[in-house]
């Protein structure tokens, strides 16, 4: 009997520290990587400003949340930020469409090389970063309200009688649900609607799409709008789950790029796969497995060290090593990239 409870405890431990955080972080990365991959598929450049676009969208959502909270409006158990999202998204769409009009359109029309776009996106990154820091400051902001947990570790323990607790934060559950809905909507849009098909055609073969009467300006506009929606939601979910700090969003750029490239850049399904691959490897490599083995092995074989492969500070290294491995072994990514 004790062997069974120990086994279940080990499973719960893994669920609590690997599966749940991995799923929610992976969903956040996947939504971010989708934005990068869309811009890459349609506009054909690596968008360095994406992390800061996320920060901007989140900041706008936070401001709207505070405004709603000051009016006494809330969603009960759910965070008020959900109600504020449309406002944040609208602001981000305005920002992205404006940067496209003022910056990228010129290079698109003059058929500039991708590297020029990329350097321009660095400029946009600087400007967006400046705006975010100017408006909300460089410090941590918390904007989570409502219920904190779906499953609380203490309740779980008393309910099951196990010595290990499973806790699922509301923000984690919310992230996974919202990500599923959003991805389903995106795929429906890309597969079934006329505009979505035009986008895929444009990404596949620009000249042929233009010949068939696809309006490039419209495709680009829609791409930026979708990117804004994805970035704002991804950023807000990340902010709800962890906390909002402009600098962290700049650092998210690397795992998001890694996710997009690992999955196959330009391929939306690849971005999702890549997001989870990166997130799970980060969590798994930096988790200390000692307790799991304490449950699984007999006492005489109890491990001595922490059984942690790498300290948590090396999580960037993990995404990068995966990135390099994929580039060397399979340059197109896990799923073949470069087509929407």
């Amino acid at each position, binding site marked *: 009997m004790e062997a069974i409870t120990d086994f279940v405890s080990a499973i719960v431990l893994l669920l609590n520290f690997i599966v749940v955080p991995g799923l929610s972080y992976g969903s956040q990365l996947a939504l971010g990587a989708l934005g990068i991959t869309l811009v890459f598929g349609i506009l054909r*450049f*690596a968008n360095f400003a994406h992390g800061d676009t996320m920060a901007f969208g989140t900041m706008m959502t936070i401001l709207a949340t505070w405004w709603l909270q000051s009016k006494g409006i809330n969603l009960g158990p759910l965070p008020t930020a959900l109600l504020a999202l449309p406002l944040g998204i609208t602001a981000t769409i305005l920002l992205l469409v404006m940067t496209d009009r003022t*910056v990228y359109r*010129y290079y698109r029309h003059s058929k500039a090389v*991708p*590297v*020029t776009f*990329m*350097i*321009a996106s*660095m*400029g*946009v*990154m*600087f*400007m*967006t*970063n*400046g*705006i975010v*820091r*100017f*408006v909300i*400051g*460089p410090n941590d902001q918390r904007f989570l309200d409502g219920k904190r947990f779906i499953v609380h570790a203490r309740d779980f323990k008393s309910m099951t009688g196990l010595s290990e607790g499973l806790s699922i934060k509301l923000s984690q559950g919310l992230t996974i649900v919202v990500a599923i809905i959003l991805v389903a909507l995106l795929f429906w849009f890309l597969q079934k609607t006329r505009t979505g098909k035009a986008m895929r055609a444009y990404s596949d073969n620009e000249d042929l799409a233009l010949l068939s009467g696809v309006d490039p300006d419209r495709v680009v506009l829609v791409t930026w709008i979708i990117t804004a929606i994805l970035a704002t939601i991804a950023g807000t979910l990340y902010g709800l789950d962890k906390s909002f700090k402009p*600098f962290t969003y*700049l*650092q998210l*750029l*690397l795992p998001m*790029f*890694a996710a997009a*490239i690992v999955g196959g850049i330009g391929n939306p399904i690849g971005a999702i796969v890549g997001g989870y691959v990166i997130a799970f490897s980060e969590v798994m490599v930096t988790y200390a497995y000692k307790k799991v083995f304490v449950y699984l092995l007999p006492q005489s074989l109890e491990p001595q*060290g922490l059984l942690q492969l790498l*300290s948590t*500070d*090396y999580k*960037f*290294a993990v*995404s*990068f090593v995966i*990135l*390099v491995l994929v*580039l*060397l*072994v399979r340059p197109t990514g896990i799923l073949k990239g470069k087509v929407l």
Partner: protein
Amino acid sequence: MSNTHKTQLSFAVIALLLIIIGLAQSWNVSLGILNLCLISAVMALGVNMQWGYAGLLNVGVMGFAALGGMSAVLVSQAPIAEAWQASWGQMVIAALCFAATIAVSIACYRKVAAGRNRNLALALIIIGGLALTRFFFDPAVTAIESIEPAKTGFLGGMGLPIIFSWLFGGIVAAGIAWCIGKVALGLRADYLAIATLGISEIILAVLKNEDWLTRGVKNVTGLSRPVPYEIDLQTTAWFIDFMRWWHSGSLGALNEVEQQLAFKQFVINGSSIFVKLCYTGLFTGVLVIILLLSVKALNSPWGRMMRAIRDNEIAAAAMGKDVTRRHLEIFIIGSAVIGVAGAMLTTLDGQFTPTSYQPLRFTFLIWVMVIVGGSGNNMGSVLGGFLIWLVWIEAEPIAVWLMTFGTSWLDESNVIRIHLIENAQHMRLFFMGLVLLLVLRFSPGGILPEVVRKQGS
């Protein structure tokens, strides 16, 4: 206006700005800015070699600069004998294990035919080798870090004069660049950018966490100096005499008591300016050497070949040029120059703080310097380094002043006014982005564009 005139005029403007800052704020501030301008110019030269000569997009400048900073610690700190005694045996074994792991995996990669078997064997060799390495390495690290953790807790350095670290920083950066280049060069431009971005984050993670090497986030402070200390100067006879002679005019007009006080102040200010001037001399020396070598290299057949590869890789390859090899070469040289600049910066600061390396300041700002100055033109990069650093530093007080002035119609205690003034400093990021975009759009060659010599001229 010819390019030479433009160069002269631009540098005259910079000199004028520095003089204005010297008169309006103080010469101390002005020289402080000049020193960082010189370091920025060296860094920009390094990036310009990679991007301007060869078209390689290195977004990992921060990492190489941090490696230079690390070498300043490793060269100048005195070795910690106890730490070495406690750990050297295990450290050597661990190093051997690590080297053997790499050697065996490379051999396996070369000898075994590609396929599932090779991948499996490689994975086993790497995992087994790393586990073995850590078996010896972890206790060694614990031993090192337990020796006076509040004061040292690391291996220390070589105890040499810190000026050698400038060379050593270049060598370390070059070595790491070789490893990176072997793996990452040959990737498409945008992949290379992301790869280098990742590598710089990894280098920073290592420097922050490997306490046995660099004390990590505990920082190493009080690095030795290549120039005298202010406090020593203030008690040195020749310096005091020099100051008396220099200020004899203004001192003569005062009475005895005032003279004493004023003179004391003069000596304190003077010592600080003297130290900064020493640094300026050293940095200018390094900048001039690197600049001369760069100009020579760019105008040599080798430089012509680099530009040919940059402008058309396929054509250059068809002419028998080994593109990947040349790319590796320039990547290493450029990174070494960045490493030198990084070591200079840490020397100037007198301390090594891994947390101070931020990508916006150390990677993207350098890129703005190169693009704005003029990619492909060495003088352009130097100018960009000077100009952008000046703007970066002075934008802060100017933004605060503008905000204070612009909101003066609001009440002192107005929340919006306080917020605007407090956060005004962040506007410089916005401004930098704007400058980059404007230059990229309206003057893609930068202020001093690349000089393209046509045949026969």
